[in-house]
């Protein structure tokens, strides 16, 4: 019989200065927070054992994440509330746990479940009619970007059309875009890359990277076409 496992899915916010802390560094920040909080994680087997902790989707440097997802395996059981409180008490500024839930035996990792990512893009105050500009941008039949890809182990520049990866893009108000982007392991739309094309398209290439990007959620598109976030998935699973 399998010994019982205590896996938790955790929702957290990452913002402020923490936006400039990369993915691997974030992993260390959290591991140390667990150590300080006295929360023991299960270690992987193998030559270089590391604590069982993973993220659904790394966030690009500079972006804020409102509801990021990580998964942990605890060495002993703990309530969701206790986990959140103990870790939050020792975290540095810029990161906060918001929610947690048990992952029953057999739950697939969030990493493998996410297929859509939702963003808000805050635009700089310029004399530009963003909603108008967006209409034109969206009427483009193709939005090509150049990127490096590995082919048979060699890096090559290729062109990819990202238009199909924009599931939804609209102006929320004069200065904010809403983006629902395809975000699976194979196909992943990076909002900053898309914006680069946008700035070029509207004739303001100098504004590249001047927008503020906030990832507001990670979702799975269900068979009926509705979106479920990673915590809802756990609820559906329980039903």
């Amino acid at each position: 019989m399998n010994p019982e496992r205590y896996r938790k899915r955790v929702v957290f916010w990452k913002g402020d200065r923490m936006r400039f802390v990369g993915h691997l560094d974030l992993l260390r920040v959290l591991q140390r927070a667990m150590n300080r909080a006295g929360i023991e994680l299960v270690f992987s087997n193998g030559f270089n054992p590391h604590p069982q902790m993973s993220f659904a989707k790394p966030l690009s440097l500079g972006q804020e994440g409102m509801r990021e997802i990580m998964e942990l395996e605890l060495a002993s059981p703990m309530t969701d509330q206790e986990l959140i409180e103990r870790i939050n008490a020792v975290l540095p500024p810029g990161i906060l746990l918001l929610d947690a839930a048990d992952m029953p035996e057999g739950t697939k990792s969030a990493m493998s479940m996410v297929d859509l990512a939702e963003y808000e893009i805050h635009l700089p105050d310029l004399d530009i009619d963003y909603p108008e500009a967006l209409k034109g941008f969206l009427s483009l039949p193709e939005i090509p970007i150049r990127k490096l890809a590995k082919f048979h182990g060699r890096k090559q520049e290729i062109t990819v059309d990202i238009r199909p990866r924009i599931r939804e893009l609209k102006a929320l108000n004069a200065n904010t875009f809403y983006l629902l982007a395809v975000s699976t392991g194979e196909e992943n739309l990076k909002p900053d890359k898309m914006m680069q094309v946008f700035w070029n398209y509207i004739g303001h290439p100098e504004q590249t990277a001047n927008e503020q990007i906030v990832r507001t959620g990670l979702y799975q598109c269900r068979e009926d076409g509705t979106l479920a976030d990673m915590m809802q998935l756990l609820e559906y699973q329980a039903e």
Partner: protein
Amino acid sequence: MRTVHVPDQILLSVDKPARYIGGELNAVRKNPDQVSVRVAFCFPDVYDVGMSHLGLQLLYGQFNSMPNVYCERVFAPWPDMEEKMRAHHIPLYTLETFSPVKDMDFLAITLQYEMSFTNILNVLDLSGIPIYAKDRTDDDPLVIAGGPTASNPEVLAPFIDFFYIGEGEVSYEELFNRYEAHKKAGGHRRDFLTKILDLGPIYVPAFYDVEYEEEPAPGAEYTPRIRSIRPNRPDAPATIRKDIVDDLEHSYYPTKPIVSYLQAVHDRAVVEIFRGCIHGCRFCQAGQVYKPVRYRSKEKVMQLCDEILQNTGYDEISFTSLSTDDYPWLEELMTEFREKYPHVGVSLPSLRVDAFSLSLMEKLAEGKKSGLTFASEAGTQRLRDVINKGLTEEDVLGGCRLAFSGGWDRVKLYFMLGLPTETEQDIYGIAHMGYQILDAWYQTPQEKRSRDVSITVSTSFFVPKSFSPFQWAPQATPEMYAEKQAYLNGQIRNRKIRYNCHDSFLSTLEGVMARGDRRVSRLLYTAWQKGCRFDSWSDHFRADLWKESLEECGIELAYYNYRERQADEIFPWDMIDYGVSKQWLRHEYERALAGKPTPNCKERCSGCGMMKLAHTGLCFEERRVES
């Protein structure tokens, strides 16, 4: 309070933006308006290097433990960030509150190695602080420098308002309190300098005049020696005495060190187990300037471990000192620590290799066999006697045999080229040692030894340093260095032995900085103006610009490096007193040339003079008398 705004766009366009944002765990938050003394503590290298440094954590923590002081951090921005800052007119700012460095009361710079000096000028410039101390006004912070490399302050003399000599734990509190009173009374910056002279460890370069002889020094073409160094005011002391922590056990220790987001070069908890070194290796400056030996008890060390691990969550710890083996309670400490913290990795730098340390290292690495390291420094016993390095050939070979039969397969050897009295035979001895170790591996029964072995021989160049017995010694020329390196390279002809070496011109410059005087400051200024910075990073080191600068400034390498200095010579750093007497150092130098080793402080006190400054430590303990 002014603050600096750094747009995201800039942070996102540079490598590792987390270097420039602060806000890390245990970074101290205070309201700058509620303190009377603001200090920017600067480690003049890139963030990831500076954050690994214990001295920074120590003084940062200690300064901030004073309620009237707020100490913040500043590092040298990496060239990509410097470019952006200059282009967007962003002044250098502190990481805690993003305040301009220029708004601080003090800019305290730690000097850890000579080749960071150009970064110091760059930090001043990026802060908008005049490079030369004489050009500063009441609007500028007072620029302090301290740390081991302040043992020859002269190359930096015109750029620094005052130097603090010795261990910072001692006098800063009093210094800041005096500053607070001075500031409240509306005093000027220059006047403040006169109010701290009686503290003891303060060297204000502007208060000292240096005169030079008329004639060039023997062995030099045109550069004359120093005739005198004299205070130009009655209240400036003739000698500046280093500060020493008397009670290490109860002195301040940073148990809440800042934990960086980025992976720092050494990313782990650090506990200093003792200070000072019993061995008097004659090339070593640290061994002299950190005297006397003072231990922390095992109980204290364990207590520090508890606090630091609790406050940081690190899963690795390093027990540091100048020579781990000499810690009297090492074995007990390791046992106790391993029992209490089985999951915390331990690193013990510079451990002697014997049965105890091998089993310990294996345990520490959890069964993995990391490499063995030997700092032999010289290739023959004769030369090791000259430099007073106690490690014998048998220590190395015996250690290797033991390790090989336990399955260890990697050995690293460190040597210096260009040591005084070195001959071809000594260099050959380096290669020979490599081969002997290889033989030891072949002689190990096959069933016991590893399948293959890798031996790495690394050489650096000997650079004479102030306050070491070799401060009189000539330094080899770059041509000689190259020749020695080529010779050694020719001797090592086996694919199991690898040879690593260094850039020789960098060592030449390091030599000029290490033993230079005020006349060399122009070289530093010129090289910086031409664009030199991050000189200790090979991808940023600009040998061409340095060569141009040497030429333009007429710096005579024969004077500064190549000649042997005279017995009665006045050194640029002679006004500084580290406790160790110049006569004793000279005596040591002469013993070196005669090939005579000197017993270490534990075996027998050799009367270095330290006792007159020290009040505690090994100098005053009863020691085993040589039998």
